């Protein structure tokens, strides 16, 4: 699309700049493969998914289908499972991202200060990130398995309920899921924030100290504001990932006990129940929710992208 318009606008002026046609042709050439792949695999399926969400395919008779308009969406909005999934997804996202940010910040500060151990820490901290999501889920499921797992025993030793069947009860299963996710991603956040910390020049701190600022004040008024860009980027990446989470609940609990997320419920309706229309509607709703959040991203951190798009 960009290539086509570029060709059309041959030699035309925009904001006082002229674009050479060789440049535009080259740009078109270089960009076409990427855009073609993206169009095929992202644009077309989304269009198709939207279409499917407006239909209903028979579960009884193969091949039979009818146009259902917004019926699937109405059904979703009236379904308590859907709203539970929405709630679970947002609760999971809110809590895990907050924890990951807090713990990540703590780790980043520790890594920033702990000069001697820094190289070791940077490596150690990437290990959870290197572990496959599926593997991590299996590990945590094993750790919390009733009768066999180590975690309930440790927790019991420090006084947290021997009675709790961790993965088998609502609320507790979500806690384990959040723990597993925090384990895997807080280190990643730590690295992002560490990079941000390292750019803050020391002179600023020195000046503040001379002015009599306490550690806390220095943290609040220097560190946080200067770290804000890094925090925002980390926040947005993690939020979008958390909203889309699938691997973890699928392997950890199969979605039971309040851990069904949006991606998971769409998947279940599509595969287990073979409700293509309804499942597609749920997928589209998931898509809309995630895109809405990412739109907020483009707005707030858009400056970042703009700078990339700017000339030279």
């Amino acid at each position: 699309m960009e290539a086509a318009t570029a060709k059309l606008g041959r030699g035309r002026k925009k904001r006082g700049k002229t674009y050479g046609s060789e440049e535009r042709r080259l740009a078109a050439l270089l960009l076409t493969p990427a855009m073609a792949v993206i169009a095929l695999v992202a644009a077309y399926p989304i269009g198709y998914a939207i279409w499917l969400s407006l239909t209903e395919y028979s579960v009884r008779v193969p091949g039979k289908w009818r146009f259902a308009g917004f019926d699937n969406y109405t059904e979703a909005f009236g379904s308590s499972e859907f709203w539970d999934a929405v709630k679970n997804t947002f609760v999971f996202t809110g809590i895990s991202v907050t924890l990951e940010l807090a713990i990540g910040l703590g780790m980043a500060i520790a890594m920033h200060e702990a000069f001697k151990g820094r190289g070791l820490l940077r490596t150690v901290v990437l290990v959870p990130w290197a572990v496959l999501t599926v593997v991590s889920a299996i590990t945590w499921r094993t750790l919390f398995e009733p009768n066999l797992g180590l975690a309930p025993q440790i927790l019991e030793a420090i006084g947290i309920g021997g009675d709790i069947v961790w993965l088998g009860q609502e609320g507790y299963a979500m806690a384990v899921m959040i723990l597993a996710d925090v384990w895997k991603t807080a280190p990643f956040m730590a690295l992002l924030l560490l990079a941000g910390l390292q750019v803050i020049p020391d002179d600023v701190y020195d000046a503040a100290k001379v002015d009599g600022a306490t550690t806390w004040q220095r943290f609040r008024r220097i560190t946080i504001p200067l770290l804000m860009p890094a925090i925002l980027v980390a926040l947005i990446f993690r939020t979008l990932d958390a909203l889309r989470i699938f691997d973890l609940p699928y392997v950890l609990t199969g979605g039971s006990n309040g851990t069904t997320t949006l991606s998971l419920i769409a998947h279940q309706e599509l595969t287990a129940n073979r409700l293509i229309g309804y499942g597609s509607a749920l997928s589209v709703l998931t898509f809309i929710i995630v895109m809405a959040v990412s739109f907020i991203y483009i707005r707030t951190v858009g400056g970042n992208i703009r700078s990339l798009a700017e000339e030279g």
Partner: protein
Amino acid sequence: MKTPRFMAVLVAMVALAIAGCGSDDSDEGAAPDAEKATQAKASGNVTWCIGKDTTGAFGTVIDNFNKANPNANVKLLELPEDAGEQRRLQVQRLQAKSTECDLLGTDVIWTAEYAAQGWLLDVSDFISQSGDKFIPSTVDTTEFEGKNWAVPFNSNAGFIYYRTDQVDQAPDNWEDLYKEAEENDGVVYQGFRYEGLTVNFLELVYSAGGSVLSEDGKEATADSQEVKDALTFMADGVKNGAAPKAVTTYKEEESRRAFESGNATFMRNWPYAYALGKDSKIADNFDIATFPGFAGNEGAGVLGGYNLAISAYSKNPEGSLAFAEFATDPEQQKLMATEASLPPTVTETYDDPAVKKAMPFAEELRSAIEQAQPRPVSPVYPQISEAIFNNVYAALQGEMSSDEAASKMNEEIQKALETF
């Protein structure tokens, strides 16, 4: 000038999608004109897709067949141990019209669904030629709309396992069993939110004389006293500690492990656990008993088991049928009974002395199977089962009262029956 072009592309894509949709359906005909599989010829490659071969018995049957039929090569493709996962993986392949699986090990409850979708070959001729080789109730599980769509492979009916060093014998009714469980180490069963819970639940309901689906399969009958009683009974059991809270995370394997590690006095499980139990640390301290009754009635079993169905997309239906015939031969059925505690579907196998030795409860098992009831037969069975196990699970967790759970279950079953 620029945006319309973008819009044009978008509209074109949507139109393409719609067009693609239209031609899609004219390719898929309605199911009923299914092909028949009548010829059994032991040749070529056959891939047998079935759940995990926990005891190696399937492998032995395959070896026997391959040796006896040098022109044929049967290969085992193991699916996960969880039946729900097995179904998901089979359905995924069938929807994709994959030729990978020739012979499917299908749980008895999938027959109606698969047949309705045209995924299976009609084997009615083979079944009628088999006369009365098979136990009739097992043949019933292969029927849908008057035709047979699979060959009964092994059957199943639940039993109660009990610790002989803790109780003298298993009580003959559930109420007493729960009482004794409370006094000892408890009872374990399959209480996780899945098909197994539907089975456990229906065993109580059927015993009480209730049902969840009408005879003709058109109406939900779950809002009944029997259902409510069963729900209350199970929920109270967890509440009072007769069944440990962890029971809501158990499937067959978890409950078996809990029993084998000495953490329970009673266990409801399928016969397969017998052979494995004899290999464990409680080998000398347990025994098996027939089903207790509920609400003053006789015990009622729910029929389980697996059938062998031939995929409509198989490239070698003759070879698949030949293997199915071989696997239901009395010799092979005996092998699976003795090595894997898999209840045969062939009537005469139960009389074999070797079988009786390996499964001392063989006689009871056969009668249990003969009398067991199938789960509701319907092409939308998965949804019906989900309606059942979701609500039973909620009742077990104390999230819903029995009345609420029963009426919600009824509502959801009715809705499933009205699925387009």
